């Protein structure tokens, strides 16, 4: 199977979107699933959120962050990824919740936001509110890459107020929870805000599903690297998640474990930069 890139566009200065041929992943994908990418034969197996699946293609939002995402960024339409595996993970129930909010503040979270809102809005009885949070005006995504068209209400916010509402999604959530009846919250993106959101929703007794991003190796339940602790019980983000009841997640452990390879990630980046310099 050739996993050819059929579209690659910038979302903002840091993030980009790619469409990749992956028929089996596309056919079985449900929001809450993720894909595993191996870009090159000596590459890592990296988990990646899926923004949508259409026909034989999947769409992914990627941040230029580490070695793999930057290397992939040098590729063009027509180039092919080494492997695309999935869909992996266990989605939360995709059902009628009533009034649902999906909040996101980072690349993978925005992809999950779009996918989940699109799916849940198809279910009768759901009223979908999507909140997408960006640092400032220069970093917001093009309109067709936002959840605007798939949500009943769409709230764009920027931390500096340069466009949309001022504040982080946490500020908007605080208001919503204060003013309205919310039946279910979903959220994805940065981990520390997810912890705060979990505390906030708990205060208002509103259930929340959060994407607990962790480091994975095989992503098939074999290594235990992505272990998360749910009410003290060990679960694996790759097969039991990655969406979990935020009220039960041991966030301190999740935040700490996610940083385990920071030093190595920097080393890989440096090595890649040197290689690129040598090429030039």
């Amino acid at each position, binding site marked *: 199977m050739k996993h050819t890139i059929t579209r690659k566009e910038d979302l903002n200065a840091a993030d980009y979107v790619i469409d990749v041929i992956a028929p089996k992943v596309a056919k079985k994908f449900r929001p809450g699933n993720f894909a595993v990418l191996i870009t090159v034969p*000596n590459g*890592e197996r990296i988990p990646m959120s899926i923004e949508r699946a259409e026909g034989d293609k999947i769409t992914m939002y990627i941040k230029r962050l580490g070695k793999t995402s930057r290397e992939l960024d040098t590729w063009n339409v027509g180039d092919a990824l080494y492997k695309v595996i999935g869909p992996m993970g266990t989605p939360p129930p995709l059902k009628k919740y009533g009034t649902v909010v999906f909040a996101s503040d980072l690349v993978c979270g925005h992809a999950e936001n779009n996918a989940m809102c699109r799916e849940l809005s198809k279910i009768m009885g759901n009223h979908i509110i999507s909140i997408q949070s960006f640092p400032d005006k220069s970093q917001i995504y093009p309109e067709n890459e936002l959840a605007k068209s798939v949500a009943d209400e769409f709230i764009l916010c920027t931390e500096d107020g340069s466009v949309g509402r001022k504040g982080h999604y946490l500020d908007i959530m605080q208001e919503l929870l204060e003013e309205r009846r919310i039946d279910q919250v979903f959220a994805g993106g940065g981990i520390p805000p997810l912890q705060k959101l979990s505390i906030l929703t708990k205060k208002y007794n509103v259930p929340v599903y959060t994407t607990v991003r962790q480091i994975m190796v095989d992503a098939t339940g074999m290594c235990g690297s992505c272990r998360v602790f749910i009410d003290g019980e*060990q679960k694996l983000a790759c097969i039991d998640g990655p969406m979990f009841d935020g009220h039960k997640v041991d966030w301190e452990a999740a935040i700490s474990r996610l940083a385990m390879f920071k030093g190595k990630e920097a080393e890989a980046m440096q090595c890649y930069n040197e290689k690129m310099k040598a090429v030039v």
Partner: protein
Amino acid sequence: MAIRERVPMREQDPEVRITNFLSVPLGYSAEEAVEEAKRCLQCKVPLCETGCPVRMSVKDIIKLIVDEDFEEAFFLSKQDNAVPAMTGRVCPQEDQCEGKCVLDKTGQPINIGKLFAFVADWARENDLLDETAPKENGKKVAIVGSGPASITCAVDLRKLGCQVTIFEALHMAGGVLQYGIPAFRLPRDVVDYELSYLEKIGVDIQLNQVVGQNVDFEELKKDYDAIYLATGAGAPRFLNCEGEKLKGVYSANEFLIRVNLMNAYQFPNWDTPIICGDKVGVIGCGNVAMDSARCAKRLGAKEVYILYRRTKQCAPARAEEIHHAEEEGIIFKEMISPCRIFGNEDGWVTGIEMIKTEFKGIDKSGRPRPVNIEGAEFILEVDTIINALGTTPNRLFLSNVPELNTYSWGGIKVDDNFMTNIPGVFAGGDALSGGSTVIAAMGNGRDAAESINKYLNE
């Protein structure tokens, strides 16, 4: 007549080999192999063969080596064993063929494992491959997983003329042979070569296929006449003690997958990293514990401890592995059991609290039962912990096939013919036993192939 001693196996010097991932044994030369084979008494009743889970023709193969007919020796070993170069290296021969060898009483049984590895290596170097095309019988069998049980079952069924498709979840075939056993015990070129045989005889290996996730089990049932589930025991066990969430705590599976499957020891040329500290504690004393400890040493750890609640005489690890580990400076700390793991404020491991044990009575496994000695706790400073406590069957596949009957611990239930509660669906390997040896799984794959063939012809 005096019994001649075993022809010694040349090995990489311990000081040198802890700096690389190359094979520890260097293998017999043709002359050495013939010399060793000549020690065989060619017993009328070859007990060695009764010890082989796949029932290889040990006696005749050794005779062919004596006659220097390595080609025939290879084809004869291939008849019963799809991957003789691998089993020659990783079988616990001391408990099987070599353990039954009459010369074992002298302490010098024939080195059957190394002889068979020699024959298979010789064939590889001479590009010899048994590629007899089988006569198609029109039956289609799907095999889930590509480890030792699957390989054997696939080859046996293919030879009978079945069209065999293997579905493997990972991006490389071989299961534990690929992700579990390090290259210094099982070189990668050996694995690749023996697996290439499957494709040569027409077994279709589909990688990245996670049955239940992107391949429907229901579709498999419709599309194939029989299914063999050999999904292995891939899920790690943890201690479930305090501190297990700390950074620097690995399951042996994670540690070995990073090193073996993902080549983390070649980081940053390979992208997957590994962090191995200076002082490593490996909990457990099986072959996986030895593999983890020896990998840690090669990754540059200064002190590597095996932490075991019994003594190494009761350990499940092979004698050869323990011997090699000791040669490499692995420190065995026996009669101690873990209590909890400590960390610093950044969330990294700094130590482990252990408690001394003593033996009281005998447990279900027939080994002395270790019990904690009250008040005998102490702290061992370590910065990396590797849990090698065994594994359980992979939950991912099982959770996707809820109609399959399993035991509470996750093992798949089968009848005497290895058939599950679903007609036409068979199971084997570690998915039944929850963790065994490569060769036991292969024996299992062979028996299942027989049952499947019978079922297909009913």
